[in-house]
């Protein structure tokens, strides 16, 4: 691929648009009103048409005023339809935005308006590709008009956000609290709606009114998976949005080349790139990602397997008179684990060997001293829990004590075990009559 100056301009416009969108978008996602962004991005169309009908110009100011008005009107109508028809918010939104969008399409066919170039498909897709051929000079620096508009929009949104940072934060997480501390939640709601509508108009030339929602929702949703902090979410959403713009444009040039076609719609690919970033966050987010949750679950499974094997070996190879399991029964139990979960069991045995806790081949494992210390701790946890349950729930049959203890033994740390010992007054014998290893027991 060859890189033109125009490509830089397109990416600049797209990235600034993404930055501008990320601010209202993050607030929408947090307030669970994402689809309000969708509704407003559709209803901007009749707002623009009406603004044109009234003023007969396509000057930016009337267009922005038309958008701001229609944003508030949409929010009001949705509210009223929801209250009056007592339906859910989604239905009210669907009814209002389809009616207004249809109205916009019909208005565009009116003879009075038809000669202006408000092509529905341009409204839907936007025309970021043309941003390079429409430059304006600001302070002697030539830049695309779309970049200028979106840049100004970003600065305004940032200003509003910083000005009302505290108010937005409280009303995003706890609207009731916001009201009780004297923040006008209704005002914040309509401020956000206006911000969304105006940003949508600024963006609609760049990414198109439907794809605005990709920029509004997808980067903030990805950011939401990556962080738990309000301020960080805005930064991440902005970065992801800008990266989607850049990645989307590059993909729009590169991918069709592989397929032997010319190029494709940049705005569409920007949405796809944002979707790709979201998928990445979905899979790989350190805390909320699918992969990290899988890994941590798997590691827990491995630890439990290790501890189960140690427990079985301890019961079979405990100091004289204390073993409750015959060696053959222990071997059978370990074999059963190896059959049930072959990979994890094998890995667990390897790990036990490496830690020097067992010795011998898998079929005839023997506890080392170090392994016995560790196993004694586990068995102590298990039997203390059984004792504890038998104290707390005297009516619980003795054969019901084992199952919960089997689960909890893996989740008991030293501090909890010590407290259990205190609460049960350091028993020597558990409810089944088996010896409870002492805390300092080192296996000898």
């Amino acid at each position, binding site marked *: 691929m060859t890189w033109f100056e125009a490509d830089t301009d397109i990416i600049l416009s797209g990235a600034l648009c993404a930055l501008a969108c990320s601010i209202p978008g993050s607030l929408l996602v947090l307030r669970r009103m*994402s689809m309000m962004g969708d509704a407003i991005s559709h209803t901007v169309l009749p707002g623009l048409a009406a603004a044109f009908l009234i003023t007969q110009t396509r000057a930016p100011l009337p267009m922005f005023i038309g958008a701001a008005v229609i944003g508030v009107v949409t929010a009001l109508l949705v509210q009223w339809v929801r209250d009056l028809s007592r339906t859910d918010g989604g239905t009210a939104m669907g009814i209002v935005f389809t009616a207004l969008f249809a109205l916009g399409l019909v208005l565009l066919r009116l003879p009075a308006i038809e000669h202006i170039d408000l092509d529905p498909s341009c409204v839907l897709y936007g025309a970021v590709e043309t941003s390079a051929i429409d430059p304006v000079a600001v302070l002697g620096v030539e830049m695309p008009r779309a970049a200028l508009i979106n840049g100004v929009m970003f600065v305004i949104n940032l200003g509003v956000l910083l000005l009302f940072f505290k108010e937005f934060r409280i009303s995003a997480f706890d609207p009731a609290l916001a009201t009780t501390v004297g923040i006008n939640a209704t005002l914040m709601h309509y401020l956000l709606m206006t911000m969304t509508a105006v940003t949508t108009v600024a963006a609609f030339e760049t990414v198109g009114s439907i794809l605005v929602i990709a920029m509004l929702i997808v980067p903030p949703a990805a950011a939401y998976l990556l962080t738990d902090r309000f301020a960080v979410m805005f930064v991440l959403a902005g970065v992801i949005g800008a990266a989607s713009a850049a990645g989307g444009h590059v993909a729009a040039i590169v991918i069709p080349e592989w397929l032997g076609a010319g190029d494709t719609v940049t705005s*569409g690919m920007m949405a796809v790139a944002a979707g790709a970033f979201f998928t990445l966050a979905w899979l790989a987010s350190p805390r909320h990602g699918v992969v990290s949750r899988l890994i941590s679950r798997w590691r827990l499974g491995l630890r439990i397997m290790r501890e189960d094997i140690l427990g079985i070996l301890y019961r079979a190879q405990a100091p004289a008179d204390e073993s409750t399991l015959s060696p053959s029964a222990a071997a059978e139990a370990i074999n059963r684990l190896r059959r049930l979960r072959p990979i994890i069991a094998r890995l667990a045995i390897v790990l036990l060997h490496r830690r020097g806790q067992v010795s011998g081949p898998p079929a005839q494992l023997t506890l080392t001293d170090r392994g016995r210390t560790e196993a004694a701790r586990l068995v102590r946890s298990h039997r203390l829990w059984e004792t504890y349950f038998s104290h707390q729930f005297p009516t619980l049959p003795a054969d019901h004590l084992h199952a919960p203890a089997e689960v909890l033994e893996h989740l008991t740390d030293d501090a909890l075990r010590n407290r259990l010992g205190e609460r049960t007054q350091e028993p020597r014998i558990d409810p089944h009559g088996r010896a409870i290893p002492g805390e300092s027991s080192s296996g000898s």
Partner: protein
Amino acid sequence: MKRLALILALLLAVAAAPAAAAAAPPPSVLDNLARAVSLRDYNTRIVIAGVSLLGLAAGGIGTFLLLRKRSLTADALSHATLPGIALAFIIATSLGGEGRALGWLLLGAFATGVAGVGVILLIRHTTRIKEDAALGIVLSVFFGAGAALIKLAEQMPQGSAAGLDRFILGRAASMIAADVQAIAVITVVVLAVCTLLFKEFRLLCFDQSFAGAQGWPVLLLDALLMALVVAVTVIGLQSVGLVLVVALLITPAAAARFWTDRLAIMFPLSAAFGAVGGAAGAIVSAAAERMPTGPIIVLVCSALFAASLVFGSKRGLLMRLARHWRLQRRVAEQHLLRALWEAAERAGQEGAGCSRAQLRSQRSWSALTLRRGIARLGRRGWVRLDAEGGISLTAQGRIEAQRVVRNHRLWEMYLITHADIAPTHVDRDADQIEHVLPPELIARLEELVTADASTSAVPASPHELVPSGPGGRP
């Protein structure tokens, strides 16, 4: 009420738009309308039949969608059909087939529509992202992919992809007889499944966990319902377009909701609204040549919704206002009856009259309200005016008043004995509830608070009779 007027004005503006639009083109409009209504044109007949059937199916299945609060899921899935259309075209064309075959394109649309619903569910169940953002993500990313793929399809050397974008905003005029047959088949299937599984779908809508507890395959039913929705969406793409097809699904159903509380009525009503909206929209757009069919259909459906919102016989605004007004009037009458009764009681003589001034000291009545109230009771024969302007209850009025006062005092006694409220504080509470106590509750109160339930006599007031109501105290 100012709000109501505003809404009405806005809704009227929306409703008037198709008419205004129809009025805009040259004078042949009336001729065109006559042609369209009389179904003289073959093309018009095709389009009207197609969109009416579509409206029928969408309105029917939309009922369940609305009640399951899945309206916007339909929006997301309709946008998710776009990449399917483009992919189907690209695959068919590169295999050397005719990429523009409608059935093949719609199959692709169905596939990605279902995939979109699947991704929404996956996001919702495996992340902490809420439903709304999941919908927005699927909607925008799938649509973006679709836009990009369509551009690619247009550049394919073999085959022409021109017209693929008609699925976005719809182009009903391009409908042919085969399309109508396809729509008819889907409509029959949808309506048949809905009729056969009516009971199951109803329970799914109203109490899903109960349905699950009863051992019904809830997931399967849900999947079937969504598959029907996707099918209707897909056949609607061609005529209304994927942006607006959601309106056909939810707006008729939401309109029908104003007329009934019974699903068995709401379902056919919603289907009828959809069919009427489709037919009327097609006729209007056939009459006004330049008007796009899809948006006009949506506007007609919105107008139906607006009309239902105002005039609906069950939940419509006017009905609710009328109910409210009737209740208010009854409350006012009963207050007056009780005031007269208590005045007589204070005078220690049944049927004793009292003056307007006395009554006005009882409660914050304006002179006008009081005069109207007395006139109304007079017309019913419950009060009479004597020569000096004194007002007294007639025998019939005493029966009515006795009931109200008795309800009031029973409730007061209940509050005192069972809710531990001080006798001086019970009057206001009883004042509000005395009008709406049903007979069963009165019977229970009698059992609870009176020693002798058989008598219908009015118990003595448990507190000193002082003027009640806001502003009543001197």
